[in-house]
Structures are given as structure tokens and as C-alpha cells.
């Protein structure tokens, strides 16, 4: 069970998640400070450590649209947030999976800030409202990357398999 700490509408862009003016900061370990930098109150809570890891953000459709900047995924992953959205923009979804940010597609999800959610493989249960929302499985080929612990580990394995002398 985890608390909903932020709710957002449709078409939240990567400029919103990680404003372009911080893009000179590239290392995943350095990006979390700028998460939702222009949502000043939420950013302040994140930086003050008031949002426990595993907390949930709930968004509408097309979350992460716009730029391919991977910082938009690493900045949320750094806080170990879980993103439940009605749908995700393609590149953001791919980046999230590659980096190990937990993303869940629940097309009918409804929640308010403060609600208690249980996010499982098949469904998202909102224990505050008592409603259950079906989860759409991630694009099937992505599971291997998740299972490997992210794309870096997955690619490393692929490389090593292609080098049988090792």
C-alpha cells in the first residue's frame, strides 16, 4: 500500500517533469533535485525527503510526451516514485523501463492526493475509494529488460553472450 502524492492531468510533458533549463545535468545520480522543478511545492517536499520511496503519482493520458530526455525518467526514479498513468508517451515509457522506474498503465485509473493505492501486476486498487482498475500489461518485449534489472544489465548480457570466449 502506498500513498498518492501527486495527481496530474493529460499530456504532462517532459518539460514539465524535468525542465529543459536543467538539461546540462545528465548523470542519473544528479537529476533527482530537479524533478517537477516548476511545481515548486512538490519539488520542495521531494528535496526535503518528505515523500517516502514507493509513493505513487497518478496521471492521465500521454504522460511524458515531448522530448526524449532521459532525465525525465531518472529524476523520478531517483526518488523511487511509482507512476500510474492512463497511458504513457512511447519514448518516456521506454526510458522508464530501461532505467527501472516503475510505471503502470491503468487506463481507467482515478485517484486523489492522499488516497491509499495498492499497485499490483493485474490491477490497481484504490483502498480509499474502494475502486479497482485493470492494468494493461507493458509491451511484451520489455519484460526481459525489467527481469534483467534494466537495459544496462540486459545489454551487458547480450554483449557477453556474443563473446563466447569469456
Amino acid at each position, binding site marked *: 500500500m502506498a500513498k498518492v502524492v501527486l495527481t496530474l492531468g*493529460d*499530456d504532462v*510533458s517532459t*518539460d*514539465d517533469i524535468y*525542465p*529543459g*533549463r536543467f*538539461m*546540462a*545535468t*545528465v*548523470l542519473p545520480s544528479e537529476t533527482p533535485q530537479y524533478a517537477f522543478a*516548476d511545481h515548486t511545492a512538490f519539488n520542495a517536499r521531494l528535496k526535503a525527503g518528505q515523500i517516502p520511496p514507493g509513493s505513487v503519482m497518478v496521471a492521465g*493520458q*500521454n504522460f511524458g*510526451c*515531448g*522530448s*526524449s*530526455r*532521459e532525465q525525465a*525518467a531518472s529524476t523520478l526514479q531517483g526518488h523511487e516514485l511509482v507512476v500510474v498513468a492512463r*497511458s504513457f*508517451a*512511447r*519514448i518516456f515509457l*521506454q*526510458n522508464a523501463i*530501461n*532505467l527501472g522506474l516503475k510505471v503502470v498503465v491503468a487506463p481507467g485509473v482515478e485517484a486523489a492526493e492522499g488516497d491509499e493505492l495498492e499497485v499490483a501486476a493485474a490491477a490497481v486498487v484504490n483502498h480509499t475509494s474502494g475502486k479497482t482498475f485493470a492494468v494493461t500489461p507493458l*509491451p*511484451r*518485449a*520489455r519484460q526481459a*529488460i525489467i527481469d534483467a534489472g*534494466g*537495459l*544496462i544489465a*540486459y*545489454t*551487458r548480457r*547480450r*554483449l*557477453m553472450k556474443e*563473446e563466447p570466449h*569469456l
Partner: protein
Amino acid sequence: MGMTVVQKILARAAGRASVEVGDVVEPAVDLAMSHENAALVINQFFEVYKGAGLEPRVWDPSRIAIIFDHRVPAESSKTANNQKKVREFVAQQGIAKFRDIRGDEGGICHQVLPESGWVRPGRVVVGTDSHTTTHGALGAFGFGIGATEMASVWALGVALNVEVPATIQVLVNGRLAGFVSPKDLVLHLIGRLTAQGANFKAIEYHGDTIRLMSTSGRLVLCNMAVEAGATSGIVPADSETLRYLREETGVRDEIEVVAPDPDAVYGQVVEIDASSLEPQVACPHAVDNVKPVAAVAGTRIDQVVIGSCTNGRLEDLAVAARILRGKKVARGVRVLVFPASWRVYRDAMNGGHLAALSDAGALIMNPGCGCCLGVHQGALGDGEVALSSTNRNFKGRMGNPKAEVYLCSPAVAAASAVTGVITDPRTLLNHQDTKTPRLAVVVTWW
């Protein structure tokens, strides 16, 4: 069953006779492009090799392109250090297609790749930039990926887990009216499809209007396909593609043209009558909040931007110069012009366009992304309004969440620069001017 262009390209690149929508393939990559964010790709690339017991070597240095464009010249020591790190990696790995910060080559990646002849029909182009869709204008399958995914491409030479997308056929017929441009066409399309209407799909452009359109215009259409969420935008290659590659980029070797099968299956067809289109404007803060210019005409503006990977090409500067020649930029309005590349810059200089723009009061900036991404060169003040020929107007996009950005064609931008309010270019010029050839053929003048 027949295949779309995208299906054919992915089938070839994956070494298969055919693919169907939803198939997961690992296409071999023909060209892998990054810009300053190569600094992050490099970091992830070395992470991949940690503990692997292998020497970190990119799979093919001749197929990797790195173009500095987003922050040129560097706006901060942080960026300068990123660029420095990339230069060292380029030298160490022998990466061939590198464009540093110089005045005799380079520019925005999405202009440099096509104008250098590096993008060919039928090829697979990936880029750590969402506007890699641009390269579909030459009949390639271009799509954006993240930095870690690019590190994987550098290591393996294939893009992992590409789902063959369903394709939306956009069928455009009719002649664009004077001062109605490919930008207006694509803004109208995005307004209809919405910002998520093509998510996980490809857009294939067809119809007479497209066939008669220059490569420059097609680049605009494919560039902004991603604003409807598309994985890729593509114009099947034709005689114009061959002309562009032979005459404008000097490509000599064989060019393979990939056409869709006549019985290709499209998930959706969108028809547009180009002759009925008016100039369009995307209003704050969403790219799909599109209205005819008349709906917002008279809106006061503080800054006009002409440039970007969408509209910083010679045709764009030519039309802006034609509108501004002999006129003056309204007092209180700043006009920033960013040619898309140094080649464009020089051609526009030799054609007299830069002089006309400068005489009118516009600032001619160095080629690059400029203020498009809100990092340097032209941030907005609180409450200010920009009218821009770029491609995104998300809140904060030009560096200030308290400012507003409207998107439009270079013609609307130039006309509005004169009046200081959003203006339909057709109302600014006399009847004779509006009879001049449509933008699609302007390029043949030079």
C-alpha cells in the same frame, strides 16, 4: 498482405521477408545520432561494459553521428565540460560524423544529417532526440530513443524491442494558398490528431500536395509528427527525394527507393484538403491547441523566433526576408533568427536574406537550437509572449513557466514582427505579393 513503407524498412533491417503490426523486431541501425546528450550516452555506454571483461568499443564508428547544436557555444561550464567529454570520446572511438562548434559546418542535427547526405531512403535512423522523426522526409524510418537505449545501440548495433507500429495514412491533396506553408498543414494535422493521437504509431504522408512539396517542406511535416506522439513520420521516397540527395547533398552512390505496397494496410486514414487551409497557430500551452491565425490575430507579442529544426531552413528565411524586406520590426518586439545550419546561414547570406532581416531589425544568431529549448539565447520574462516557428510550446519550454509561447509558420512570425501583434501575413502584403509561388517551390528560386 501488403506492407507500408515502415513495415518494409523494418523487415529489411531485421532480416525478415515481412513483418506485421505488433511484431517485435531488432532492426539493424544504419545511423545513430546524438547531440550534447551524448555525454549521458557515453556515461551509460561505459556502465554497460563495467564488469563485462570487454574493451568498450562502439559497434561501428562510421554509423554514429554526434552534432553539437543544443547549447552552442556553451552557455555554462557544465555544458562546456559535457562537450569536452564528448570530443574526447569522439577522438578515442574514431567517430566519423562529428560536427563541433565551427562556422564552416554543422548546425542543428536534424538539418545537418539530411544536408550531409547521411540519411537515405529505406534506412533506420535512431537519435537521442524526439525529433528524429524528421528524417522520414527522405523515406527513412527515424525515431527517437533515450540515452541508455543509445548506449545499447552503440554496443550492439541494433535497436532492441521495436514494435512494428500501425500506420496512419495522411492523404493531402490540393494546392496550398499563398503564405500557407507545410507548417500550417502539420499544425492543422496535430490539432486534428491531438498530442497523443499517433502515440506508438507511424504517420505516412501521401497525396498530390506531398508529391509537389520540396524536401524542405517534407522535413517540417515529419519533424512535427512526434507532436502527435508518432514514433515516426515518413514520406515515401520519390523523384524529389532523389533530386534532393543528388543535387543538394551530392550523393553519388546508388539510392534504393522503398515504396509502400498498393495493398498496404493502414490503421487510419486522415484526409486533408490543402487548398482550404489558412495559416495556423498553436496556442499556449499545448501543441494541439491549434487555431486559424484569425482567431488569435491582434495578440500582443514580445519576442519572435524564426529558426529551429522545424523552420530554420533556406525557404523559411527566404519567406521571412521577403515579408520583412524594406520594413521595420515593431518597437518593443525582439526578433531572433536562428538559421538551422551554417550551410543555410551562408546560402541565406549569399541570397541577401540575412541582410534584409538584419536591416529590418532582426538579430541574426548563430545556427543551433537557440532559445527553442529554453536554455540560453533568448529566455522570456514573466508574462511575456513569444511567437515562434519552433515546434513546442509546453509551459516553460522557452525557459520561463510564467511566459507563453505561440507556434506558427515563418510567414506568420515575420508578418507579426512588423505589427507587434499576431498577424495573418496575407493581410500585411498587397494582392500581387500573395500571388507569388507557394512556399513549396520557393526553393527553386535560388
